[in-house]
């Protein structure tokens, strides 16, 4: 008995010293630790997590060296160098990992989270831990509308997913004014379901009498869409909406174009931009493409964007896609706030970031909703056109939608706003 007790005490104390010993290294005063959480493994790593991590690495180096163009040409965050800690979002213990990042690794700021499920779990914990946390990519509007209605430490620097689908509906109606029926093919999980709900609700409000001819919900990572494409072909809808991403979207494009889906119906891909570079000539001309905001080829002409695209291409050999842009938005938001507050103290950054307007490669970001914690941006859609001479895909007929046109006003829930017929929307 005694030996058992001794052993237990001994082993726990060994564990303790091993674990706490490393926690005692304090950050230097001119350094700010930023924890980055993205998918580094699993299905979402390739299309989202890795491009986001790449963008973060590039931005951290450039900011620390002071090489980003104006207005971000000062080195560091208010002079302090960024010391990044990367962790994998692909984990079952997301909350425990977050607490470890904050308490043990001593992250001063946390930037991260791609999956809306992760964001839902972390949203209340960020407030509990009183730690400045910036969600950079996850799309669900529920974060500030239902889960964390009085945010203090939590911010999101990307517009939520409602914007994508409201703008999609507006764009597709401007191209196909005589649309009478719509159909959707979306992955059967939260993102696909939410996207289709917002899109179909917006279509019904924008054009009375439009019919839903079929709703297809294949499961995520299915890879084969033969029967769904058949259903879409036989129903002959004027418009087909899809929020597919990554390999699923590429599979749909290749299988659907082979069977004439893209010539029979007007197809709109809300995240199509991520496949443009990879597919090139395989992507059918005339497909409507979105990028979850004015990102990638939809980004406005500005010096920051030119610099970012070139720097990213030089380093990684491909152009940045929207997850990279979202990451840059988050990092520049934090930098703009820190520079404005002239401090890396989280309470000062937090007050400065609240309601801040800042410029990014994807244009102006304004922290306008949920008491200054949720960003809105303008967005854009375009039509795909493959240029045979240059061998590159381009977007033509790009239409821009002002932030106030495709985002709900403050203090109004997204779905209520769509149902109200976009009350208060300002589209000039």
């Amino acid at each position, binding site marked *: 008995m005694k030996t058992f007790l001794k052993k237990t005490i001994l082993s726990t104390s060994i*564990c*303790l010293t091993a674990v706490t010993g490393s926690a005692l290294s304090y950050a230097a005063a001119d350094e700010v630790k930023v924890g980055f959480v993205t998918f*580094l493994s699993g299905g979402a790593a390739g299309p989202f997590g890795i491009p986001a991590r790449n963008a973060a690495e590039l931005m951290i180096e450039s900011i620390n060296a002071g090489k980003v163009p104006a207005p971000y040409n000062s080195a560091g965050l208010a002079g302090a160098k960024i010391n990044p800690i990367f962790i994998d979002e692909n984990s079952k*213990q997301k*909350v*425990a990992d977050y607490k*470890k990042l904050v*308490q043990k690794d001593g992250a001063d700021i946390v930037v991260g989270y791609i999956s809306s499920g992760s964001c839902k779990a972390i949203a209340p914990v960020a407030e509990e831990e009183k730690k400045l946390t910036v969600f950079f990519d996850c799309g669900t509007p529920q974060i500030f509308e239902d*889960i964390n209605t009085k945010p203090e430490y939590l911010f999101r620097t990307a517009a939520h997913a409602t914007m994508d689908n409201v703008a999609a509906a507006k764009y597709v109606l401007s191209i196909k004014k005589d649309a009478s029926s719509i159909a959707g093919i979306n992955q059967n*999980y939260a993102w696909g379901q939410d996207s289709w709900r917002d899109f179909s609700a917006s279509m019904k409000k924008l054009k009375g009498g439009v019919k839903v001819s079929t709703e297809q919900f294949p499961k995520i990572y299915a890879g084969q869409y033969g029967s769904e494409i058949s259903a879409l072909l036989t129903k002959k809808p004027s418009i087909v909406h899809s929020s597919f991403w990554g390999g699923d979207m590429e599979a749909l494009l290749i299988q659907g174009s082979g069977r004439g889906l893209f010539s029979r119906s007007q197809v709109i891909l809300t995240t199509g931009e991520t496949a443009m570079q990879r597919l090139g000539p395989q992507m059918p001309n005339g497909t409507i493409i979105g990028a979850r905001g004015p990102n990638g080829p939809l980004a406005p002409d500005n010096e920051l964007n030119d610099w970012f695209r070139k720097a990213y291409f030089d380093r990684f050999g491909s152009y940045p896609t929207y997850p990279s842009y979202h990451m840059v938005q988050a990092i520049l938001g934090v930098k703009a706030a820190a520079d404005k507050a002239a401090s890396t103290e989280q309470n000062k950054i937090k007050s400065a970031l609240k309601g801040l307007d800042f410029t990014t490669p994807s244009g102006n970001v304004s922290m306008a909703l949920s008491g200054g914690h949720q960003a809105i941006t303008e967005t854009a859609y375009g039509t795909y056109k493959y240029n045979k001479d240059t061998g590159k895909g381009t977007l033509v007929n790009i239409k821009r939608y002002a932030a106030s046109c495709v985002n709900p006003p403050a203090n109004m829930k997204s779905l209520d706003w769509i149902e109200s017929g976009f009350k208060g929307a300002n589209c000039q």
Partner: protein
Amino acid sequence: MTKNLDRTEKGLIISLPVLIALGFILPEWIVNYIQVSLGTGLVALGVMLQMRAGLVSFGQGLYFCIGGYAAGMAGKFLGVSDIFVLVALGLFASVTVAFFAGFLLRRYREIFFAMLSLALSMILFGLLSKLEVLGSTDGFNLPSATYLGWAPEGDTAKYALYVATCIPTIICTILLNRYLRGPMGYVGEAIRENELRVEYLGTSAHRAVHIKYIIAAAVSGIGGVLWALALGHVDPEMTNWTTSGQFVFVSILSGTGNIVAPLFGTFILEIVRVYAVEASPNTWQMILGTLMLLTIIFLPKGLWSLIQKKKAAISTQKMAGSES
């Protein structure tokens, strides 16, 4: 009374105050890992219990998820946040499902049992991923736990929940140890060795497997409730095969030698994972995989066999000493 307790039980009873005290001494993030490890450790216990009877459940996440969702739905739709009610609901839901599923599963052994349990858990996964009311794959959040009308806040709430996680875990472990030491427990090993003989000796192997299956589901359900309360969020990932696979992983890693092995194993694996991610955020799975391979090659009976071997060595030494 104490005469009936074996060493493991005595150790467990002593470990309860130790665990609770650790909650106050250790930094909060480690306590958090201990807390989630206790939740998932209970499920690993369920897997280990079946492994003793030669049954590998590749779908134990099913009951883990049922427990978590039962608690979550009670909170979401009925506004219940009392931990006693939530644990009771999780227990009831998982036992009910296991009772009916058991009639089917008790007829299968080996790979067929593994595949069938996996299939059942993936049915739930598919179902939950389709249900928009329950947040689909994003899942939904749970309310903070209350205790018979007492609703602590801040740090008190964290400690209260930690203590409320430790107590049922230790109680379940002691009860399971009791069960494994009893005749019904040993029947499991007999079934693994020779099922036909068990039947000849006058016991129904089907019935014994059925009971084991229900008990495993009961502890997994409780584990699910406790884990979900610690995380504050449930999603269908709980019943995905990767989660179930992890429970099997833990059981193999820690070994089936002792009832506390899976609890320790879960925590050790969790800490190894945390440091693997820290050391190499891009390839941390390789470190875990290597560990698994090394364990299987050099310690086929799991990490617990290290302790057993040492014990055996000590006792032979003593024997030799007394003879001379």
